[in-house]
């Protein structure tokens, strides 16, 4: 009987090994382990045996069933793996084909906007609000209130654009600086004041470093005790943060602006390394803006008590700050809307300037 069992096993095992696909294997399994299968038939014979035979052959048949079951499972796994391999081999894609670029990596933020956001972030950290004012101004706000009366030579030096329209008998004009925002903001509120005013400004001028429209930032602090030392620190702190260097020293040079007294030009320490400007070290000085203590005449025009309040103001060119930091050679290109220029010098929308992570993400610059 045992020999017979051995022969059955050999035949079944051969058939399992010979099955080349899953359905053939299933046929083998049914023929062996199915209700009418050979192994099942053997097991059924146990019921008719005497106790001794059953004792002897029971384990033999059961072991056979286990071995056949395992052999079928093992063969099935092999055949399934072969099937998967065949299927995968037939299912290839050329993964080197180009994919669509995500639009958020196609769009750009203009360098002037990015720079303005940097300025807002830096000055916000020093407690400055952001004020705004109109582009079209009256002679009063652009000049008179800033202590530049009619016929003052400084009026001629502003290359002002005038509109054909008038207000109160005086032609309206395009603001030549952001300083009118000082007066408007002070008139609308009460001291103390601490704000910046960035915006478009206009002068009748055009060459590589002058365009008829450009951007300026004005800064103003008015309270009871702010002095030139505070101005110096504010500008040094700003320039250090903006240019992302260890320390930018500034130098004041006496100058003249009708709306400040004393008035100073602001130079920052720098040097040239080949064509490259290096801010913060070296023996050169670069003019970066104008500043001074707010002239009491301006405070008076703005309705501020000059016996009690004083403060400083400064102004800088935003486009120029951007050029110095990011290396654009020609101001005129800022307003040309050339996509090639905008893609190269512009910023990705995910590149949001902040003080915690640093203002500029060099790794996100145009490649």
């Amino acid at each position, binding site marked *: 009987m045992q020999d017979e069992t051995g022969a059955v096993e050999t035949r079944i095992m051969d058939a399992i090994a010979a099955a080349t696909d899953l359905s053939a294997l299933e046929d083998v399994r049914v023929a062996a382990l199915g209700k009418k299968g050979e192994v099942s038939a053997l097991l059924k014979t146990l019921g008719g045996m005497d106790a001794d035979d059953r004792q002897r052959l029971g384990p033999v048949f059961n072991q056979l069933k286990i071995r056949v079951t395992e052999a079928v499972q093992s063969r099935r796994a092999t055949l399934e793996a072969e099937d998967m391999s065949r299927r995968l081999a037939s299912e290839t894609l050329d993964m080197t084909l180009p994919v669509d670029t995500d639009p958020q990596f196609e769009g750009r933020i203009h360098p002037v*906007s990015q720079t303005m956001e940097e300025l807002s972030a830096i000055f916000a950290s020093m407690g400055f609000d952001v004020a705004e004012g109109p582009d079209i101004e009256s002679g009063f706000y652009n000049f008179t209130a800033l202590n530049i009366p009619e016929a003052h030579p400084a009026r001629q030096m502003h290359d002002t654009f005038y509109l054909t329209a008038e207000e109160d008998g005086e032609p309206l004009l395009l603001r030549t600086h952001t300083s009118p925002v000082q007066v408007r903001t002070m008139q609308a509120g009460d001291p103390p004041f601490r704000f910046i005013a960035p915006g478009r400004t206009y002068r009748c001028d055009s060459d590589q470093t002058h365009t008829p429209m450009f951007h300026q930032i004005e800064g103003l602090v008015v309270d009871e005790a702010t002095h030139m030392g505070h101005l110096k620190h504010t500008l040094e702190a700003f320039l250090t943060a903006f240019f992302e260097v260890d320390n930018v020293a500034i130098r004041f040079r006496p100058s003249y602006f009708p709306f400040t007294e004393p008035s100073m030009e602001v130079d920052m320490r720098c040097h040239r390394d080949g064509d490259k400007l290096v801010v913060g070290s070296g023996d050169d000085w670069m003019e970066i803006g104008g500043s001074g203590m707010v002239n009491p005449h301006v405070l008076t025009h703005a309705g501020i008590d000059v016996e009690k309040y004083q403060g400083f103001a400064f102004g800088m060119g935003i486009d120029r700050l951007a050029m110095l930091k990011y290396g654009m050679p020609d101001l005129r290109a800022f307003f040309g809307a050339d996509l090639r220029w905008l893609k190269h010098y512009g910023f990705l929308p995910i590149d949001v300037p902040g003080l915690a992570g640093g203002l500029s993400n060099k790794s996100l610059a145009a490649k």
Partner: protein
Amino acid sequence: MKFTLSWLKDHLDTSASLDEIADKLTLIGLEVEALVDPSETFANFEVAEIIATAPHPEADRLQICTVKSGGGEQQLVCGAPNARAGLVGILAQEGAVIPASGMVLGKAKIRGVESRGMMCSGAELGLNDDHDGIIELEAGASIGSPAAVALGLDDPMIEIGITPNRPDCLGVRGIARDLAAAGLGTMKEDATRPIKVEKKGGTPIDVSGESCPVFAGCRIEGVKNGPSPDWLRARLSAIGLKPISALVDITNYISYDRGRPLHVYDADTLAGTVQARQAKAGESFVALDEETYELNATDCVIADDRGVLGLAGIMGGLASGSTLQTKNVLVESAWFDPVAIALSGRHHNIDSDARYRFERGVDPASVETGLALAVQMIVEICGGTVCAPVMAGAVPDNKKTVRFEPARVHQLTGLEIDEADMQAILTQLGFEVKKGKPWQVDVPSWRPDIDDATQGADIVEEIIRIYGLDEVPATPLPQAAGIVRPSLTLAQRRAGLMRRALAGRGLVEAVTWSFISAEHAAAFDVAQGLELANPISSDLSHMRPSLLPGLMVAAQKNADRGARVINLFELGNEFKAATPGAQRFAAAGLRAGLGGVKTWTAAARPVDAYAARADAEAALAACGVATDTLQVLSVDTANGAGCYHPGRSGILARNPREPMAVFGELHPALLARFDIDIPMVAFEMWPETVPEPKAPKQAGSDIARPALALSNLQMVRRDFAFEVESPIPAADIVRAARGADKKLITSVRVFDVFEGGQLTEGMKSVGLEVSLQPTQATLTDAEIEAVCEKVTAAVVKATGGRLRG
């Protein structure tokens, strides 16, 4: 303002070097703009003597000269007619850069004869127009000495920028005064002597009107006008003024030496009384620039009994000026009102050294001292007999005393300065200090800029600029405790979010001019008065009423450069009326050319208006608008949308009275007007139309999100296809379906639209996917069926369409 080092040293006794002087000038507010050392220009030029000449074998007009210089003898070929043995002139050595031509001198062979170096003419050295011969120096010039020294051109020239508040430094003596105060030497005595009258009787002078309070004149008879002495010519040349004649040069010299403009008349051309008066309407005169100026009553003129001689303080007349034949002169030294001169000069558009000084404020005290200096120099150089000076009117008294509290220095600068130092600085600058509480400080007559109404700031500036601005201690601003509060307004925050939302959609931010051309402005109905009176070009003449023209022009330019997918946006102001503040902040985006280039998965596709709508919705969403609640209205229901294609555009609004954005294809007629040959879609959106969020009852209570109710029950989705008349908007169908069961239906989505095929002409099929979300219990088949029937009924009722089988 230009001057030379030796000129400065006429007034300042100093041992400081040129660099020290230049640095100090900048640090005290007299910014050095240029330093020119002419000895550098003549580095390879030296004095040399022609010791022998021989005829050139090949050319009659050339000579072979043997020249002796500091380095020995050399041979050169020279074509100058005056080249001869014994002539001492200027030799340019190899490597010299010839000033007139910029040419670098090398070895040369001229008609076969070797020539080393070149004897130079005045023209070649850029000194004068003398081309006819080489320079002949006076005997005694040392052979081999530098040319700059021999030519008297070794005097460095300094150019400084003078701010409008410092008319006193438009004269060298004023600059010297500032330097002396800053510790760079001591002022020399003024060598001007009082006028010594030699003859009675002068030219009668008179003043009237308000613009000229004083007019002093002095007649000098029997002068001999001619070229100025070399020292005077050299100084004027060094600062870029052309020497003309002694009489003219002397007035120019005093203008730069003292900041005191003068005028010299040929007295023999004058008739009767010379007077300063207002011009009469209809008067005119021919000025020194040979232009005729028509005058009006606001102009102050100098006139005689026959008529106008010159525009006072601005430019003299051609007929009455001095010439080389002039024998008798009248020297004018007057003072004119700065505002009158500024207005008159601006009106006639004349720039002159005199106007420049008078409109900034000439020292009234120099009316007499300037006249005396002029008379002294004329007599020294041109001879003549001095008549008694005449003065009409009176020198205006501009004496001013300002109050000054020394504590202001610390208050404004943060710097502690000894009162004694303050007093010393002010005194050196010519102020007189009377200590007290507060100090009384007398302002010198040459400082019209110092103002009593600046709470002492003007005096602080004088002290600090001389004391040294470098000393100002950098001091942090006091900072409120805690973390700084947000600084941006809602509008500013929205602008930042919109900018990044639009760039995130692949649009590239442009900054275009605020002004556009007249033609483009006309296409956009620009309001009256928004035209510039003095545009820089005809393309930039009108304030933009919309951001579109700038973007359209920019997009076409990019297309012309070969760009195919052009996606631009801009945030900025539109100008609605010629009033300060009549500007509206807008966002606009423009897509032009292709929506996408052909790829391996898709063909190239043109821009379409739906992308513009999506852009508009992105901008609105960035401002906090729930865009799924917006209606799309047709453009003819609102104004100002005439630039869009009426059938392919829309207005986004919460209700018809509150449009927030407009979008669509740009009108073909508009594109034609702009000469645009690519398709364009655009949107415009105005953040101010988006209401501010309501302030929360309690600060911060609007930050937390509302509670989220999620259902665990299975969502059911059912598809429908409705056949409706083609013009029926998809939004009507969606709205009807949505309204069928507001509780159960959570979304209705259009997934298919088509016309043609088996459909009747004029009909379209719209496929909807309706999502049902039960919240109480799983939906039974019967319940689902009931909702589907309600959806169908609602759509059929609203649209007159039918459910397709």
